[in-house]
């Protein structure tokens, strides 16, 4: 059975209210509304619902919580940048040291050995954190969530 004229128009009222109809459909609805008090009332009720939904009041997040969120984000994001700098720098330094050791082999000085110890220490820390992350991965509650 064909839907009645009213049903056809009412199916469009929601999108008409949101100004999301094509120009032709919008015109069709407008002409119908001029002669149909029932559909005008229907539209009025939808408009009131929309307005009420838009003005629903929810408790604001506590400001302290928001500041805490900003701090946590800041810490986590700066940590990421720090790791990139440390790893990039360490890798470049390692490559440079290897090349120099191959080209000009000699017994390293105390300064070079201390620098090397710091580098090796950083690399050990990096691999330790990397291992921890890999072990934690199966328990990450958001791992499977798509962006």
């Amino acid at each position, binding site marked *: 059975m064909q839907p009645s004229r009213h049903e056809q128009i009412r*199916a469009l009222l929601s999108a008409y209210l*949101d100004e999301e109809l094509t120009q032709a459909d919008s015109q069709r609805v407008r002409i119908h509304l001029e002669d149909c008090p029932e559909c005008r009332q229907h539209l009025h009720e939808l408009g009131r619902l929309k307005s*009420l939904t838009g003005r629903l009041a929810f408790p604001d*997040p506590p400001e302290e919580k928001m500041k805490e*969120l*900003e701090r946590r*984000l800041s810490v986590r*994001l700066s940590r990421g940048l720090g790791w990139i700098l440390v790893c990039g720098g360490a890798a470049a330094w390692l490559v440079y040291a290897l090349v120099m050791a191959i080209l000009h082999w000699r017994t390293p000085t105390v300064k070079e050995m201390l620098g090397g110890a710091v580098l090796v220490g950083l690399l050990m820390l990096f691999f330790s954190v990397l291992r921890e992350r890999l072990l934690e991965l199966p328990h990450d509650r958001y791992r499977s969530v*798509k*962006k």
Partner: protein
Amino acid sequence: MAESRAETRPAAAIQEDGLATFFQQHRRRAYLFALQMVGDPEDAMELTQEAFLRLHKCWHKRSASGSALPLLYTILRNLALDLLRKRAVRREEEAALEQEPTPEPGPEALASQEQLSAALWQAILRLPQAQREVLLLKDFHGLRYDEIARVTGSTRALVSSRLHDARERLRRRLARYL
């Protein structure tokens, strides 16, 4: 929905490519959408944090117009749906009895605007999830149909249809008070 709060200065570490400004402008609406989706303030706060971290990782994928809002809503929605799925599984495992929805208040109780809003919110909570999220994204968060379609991974026509169904259900349920 306008952001009404006076905002604090952004942290230095997230001051890049406008992300800090974006965070300040939209953190409240992000939190409210998470709250509307999952219902629990603690979970909402955690989802908001996770969403901004993920947004930072894919900040370059925001739309050509520069608006990252649909992307933020997409991430929040996916996180919320994941949490809701896990909750549902947990409920099944615990064999918990499904909670009856709070009954709508009668006409006497609907004397004030606040009580009408409460009744409306109860009715919204009883909508199917797909209709509820579309309704909130449109009427509370002010997104356009094409933006909602991107957020929900559907089409503009489906958004329009779900919104129509949601509003008709609400209209029928609250007809006496409109």
